[in-house]
Structure formats: C-alpha cells, structure tokens
C-alpha cells in the first residue's frame, strides 16, 4: 500500500480534532495545555505534508515559527496555571467559576 500525502493530512486532521475535543471536555488545566499542543502539531503535520506535495520549502519553514509560537504560548499558559494552582491547589476548570458563564 502506498502512503500518500492524503494519509498525512488525515492524520493531521485527526490530531487536530482529538486535541480540540480534549480541550473542550477535559477539565485539568495541564491536560488542556497538552491538547493545545496536539492541535498545533496536527497543523504542523499538515503543513509539512503539503510542503512535500507542493515541493515548496515555505510550508516547512512555517513549522519553525509555529513551534516557537506554541512554546511561547504554552509557557504563558503554564505560568497562569501555576499562578492559579498556588492559590487554589487542585483546581480544575470547573472551579474557575467566580465569573458566571
């Protein structure tokens, strides 16, 4: 069986959807951060696969930028999570309901 670009795109889409679903249903802030990473990596995989298909280096350079942005974002997110856990140990997303909504 030939592994074509389409398979990589499907895998990327699956990672994206798993990450998105996880973000919506998991209540642990750390797991939510992991889900964000999963979504972004799904996108990265799509970028690389398409770059391969189009024979264009641009899509692969994009991944560098996305990686760095994702790292910066997650570091900020971890900072927020730690700041919250320091006040309320063991907090989940459901405990964050001082603001109704």
């Amino acid at each position: 069986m030939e592994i074509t670009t389409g398979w990589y795109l499907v895998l990327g889409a699956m990672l994206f959807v798993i990450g998105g679903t996880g973000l919506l249903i998991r209540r642990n802030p750390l797991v939510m951060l992991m889900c964000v990473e999963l979504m972004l990596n799904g996108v990265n995989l799509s970028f690389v696969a398409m770059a391969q298909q189009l024979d264009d280096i641009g899509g692969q350079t994009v991944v560098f930028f996305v990686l760095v942005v994702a790292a910066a974002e997650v570091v900020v997110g971890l900072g927020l999570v730690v700041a919250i856990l320091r006040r309320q140990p063991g907090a989940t997303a459901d405990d964050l309901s001082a603001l109704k909504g």
Partner: protein
Amino acid sequence: MGSLQLVGFVGPSVNWWALLPQIILLGAALAVLLVSALAPQRASTVFTTVTTLCAALTSFVVALGLWSDVKADGPSSSIASAFGVDGFSIFFTVLILIGLATTALLSHGYLDREEMDPPEFHALLLCSAAGAIVMASANDLIVMFLGLEALSIGIYVMIAMHHRRSEARESAIKYFVLGAFSSAFLLYGIALTYGATGSTNLVHIRSYLDAVVFQDQHLLMAAMALLLVGLSFKVAAAPFHFWAPDVYQGAPSPVTGWMASIAKAAGFAALLRIFFAAFASHDVDWAPIVGALAVITLVIGSVMAILQTDIKRMLAFSSVSHAGYVLVAVHSASATGTSAALFYLFTYTLMVLGSFAIVGAMGPDDEHPLSRYTGLGRSRPVIAIGFTVLLLAQAGIPTTSGFIAKFQVIAAAVESESYFIAGVSMVTAVIGAFMYLRIVMAMYVVDEGEEGPRPIWHWTTSVVVLAAVGFTIIVGLVPQFLIEFARDAVPVLVRG
C-alpha cells in the same frame, strides 16, 4: 527539495522605513524592560508612561510620513511581499497608536491604585501594539499569525498581572484557553489555504484564485470556514462570543478597553485583508456566511445586553453587537462596505476606550453593578454628561459619530441589496439603545436626597474622556475628514 547552491545569497529587500513604527514600539518595550532590570527605582509609573507615550508619538509621526509616501507613490510592500504598506495598514497603525496612547494614559492612575508593576505592563502593552500593527499590515498569512500571537500573548499576561484578584487570573486563563483554541483554528485554516493555493502570501493567493478555476472547492471552502471561525473568536462575533462577558468582567479595566478596541480592530483588519482583498474572487462563497454571522451576532449582542446587571458585562455584549455591525459592512464585500467598516472601527474604538476609562475610574474591578452609577448625574455632573455622550454614541443617536458609522454600515448593506440584514441591523440598533438608556437613566433618575457615587479621579482619565467625547461629537458634526480617510484606506495587495 530543490538544491540550494552556494552562490551569493540575496536577502529579500527590506524597506526599513516601512517597518519603523513597530520597531520603535519594540525598542521602547526593550528599553523599559532594560531600565527596570538595571535601575528598578528609576522605572517609575511616570517614566514608563512617558516612554510609552513618546514611542507612540514618534511612531505616529513616522506613520504620517508613510501616509504621504503612499499618497505620492501608491501602495507598496516589503520583505518579499510579506508586509504591505498601503492606506489600510496606515489607517490601522494610526488607530492602534491612538489606542496605545489612550491605554497608557488610563493605566497611569490604575497601576498605582492597584499596585501593579508598571514596567512589565507597559512593555507588554507596547509588544501587543506592535503585534497588532503587524497583524493589520501583514500580506502573508504566517506573518499575520505571528502578529496575532504577539498581540494575544501580551494580553494574556496583562489580564493576569493583577496580583490580588483571583477573577483576573481566572479571566486570563479563560481568554488563554479560548485564544489558543481559536489560534489553532486560524492556523489550520492557513494550512488548508496553503494546500489549496500553494502559498501563504496573500498576493500569490489572490493571483492564483483569479487565474484558476477549481474543479473541487472543498479544501478552499474548509480553509475559509476555519479562518472565519478563528477570527470570529478574536473579534467576539456570535456564536463564538461566549468568552467575552467573563473575560471583560474579570480583566483590569484598561486592559478590557484595549481588548475591546484594539484586539477587535486588529482582528477585523486581518478579516478584511484576507477575505475582502485575497479571497475577493470567491465572495459568493464567503459573503453569505459572514452575513449569517452578522445577523446572529447583532441579535445575541443586543438582546443579551439588556439582560445584564453588571456594567462591564453590558459593555461586553454591546461590543459583541458592534462586531455585528462591522460584519454587516464586511458582508457587503464592496469598497463602500470596507470603508464603512473602517469608519465604524475608528469611531467605535474611541467610544469604547472612553467608556472603559470611566468604568475603570468608578472604583474596584470586582463587580460593576448598575447601582454603583445611581446618582452620578448629581454628584459628578460633568462625568455623567461625558458618559452619556459616549453611551448615546454607541446607541447611534444623531449628532454623534456612532450615528454616522451605523448609517454608513446600513447604507453599504442596502447598496449590496441585502435588505434583510439592513433591516435586522436597524431593529437591533433600537433594541440595543434600550440598554444604553438604562445606564443613562440610572445616572440621572434618582430619589431625592440620595448621595451619588464619588469616584477617585485621576487627571489622565479626564484627558482621555475629554478627547473621546470631543472626537465623538466632532466626527458626529463634521464627519467628512474621517470618511475620506476611510475611503482611501481600502486594502490593496501589491507585489513587492
């Protein structure tokens, strides 16, 4: 992969002059951080505010210089067509710099009162402003994404900077999770656009879409849908608005003003540049979706606003409904519609910054019940009149800028023969006006002998409110200059 050869590498030509506005802002951010690291006692609130204001002013002068260049030589682009210099980018640069100066002034009294670190706050604000400018000027989807992230990451931290309030942290993590979620959507949209058109550069995308007729449009449609979802989160358009009330309520008031005005304006800048400029040839595909979003946003924004009892939540839903009006203008997919959207964003930014200036001065951020404003008309008549003008302008009462803005939006909708959407915007304008009138009534209708509130007032807040009210009334009476500015600012994509 193509083989790279060891011949002289020619970097992309960089027009440093065009990049100067955001380089100044970033330089100021680094300088503020450096001073706070080297000599913490020197990095006072006054020093940081003055630095930010000077940076904004210098940047502003450079932007005006660029504007005269664009007028003389026409639009251009730089860094391998990744960064556009046209009326559109300069319009938003000017708007963002005004927002930056205003937020810096508002934070001046606020940071001292709430004991927050001024250098870090201002450094983040400057970075976030530079990100917003990059986002509005980017001619490449990836550059746009980087600008968006610089804008958002700055805001995440600014919201959470309030040490003592757990609401601020909660609001920050909510905004963070949804912001990251929507960035991922946007990025997936960019990936699919790249797959469908072979480039992330808007100039290439435009020429590719003009030249090629797709047999199978699914990839492109999915790309447009994902981009639209990602940006709708950022501009708080329904049904992706649900974070807005919580986050606006929990965030420190100056940051709320910044989010409601500049983050939204930059989001719309990206939306207009991508859809109106790059996907112009496919407007039959995206315009109906934008129209549907606009209708939902208008209805939800105005109806939900009435049900709120907290001023910040009311203003949050009112900002949702304002996003609806701008979407109506985007929906018409015409130059008239785009300049109506630009005009709306400009006037709206000033109104919302002025409103949050007053809200921020009205006392601690925990809750802003409507009752706190009872009798303001008696205890502080001048403030009450200023707030009334800003609220009536948001409602769209004639002789204010809000009326001209709403009028232009509805005119653009009528011009593109979307009578239903024009009708919905008029009806929701009336519903929305009820909410603004409720606040005004609370300020003036009061029992005999009841003492009104006496907010702590910093002189910088007065400057901001005065400027916002003055601008709102002046544009309401003589709107021509701003209309012309917005007309010249329709985005164009030029190969650089």
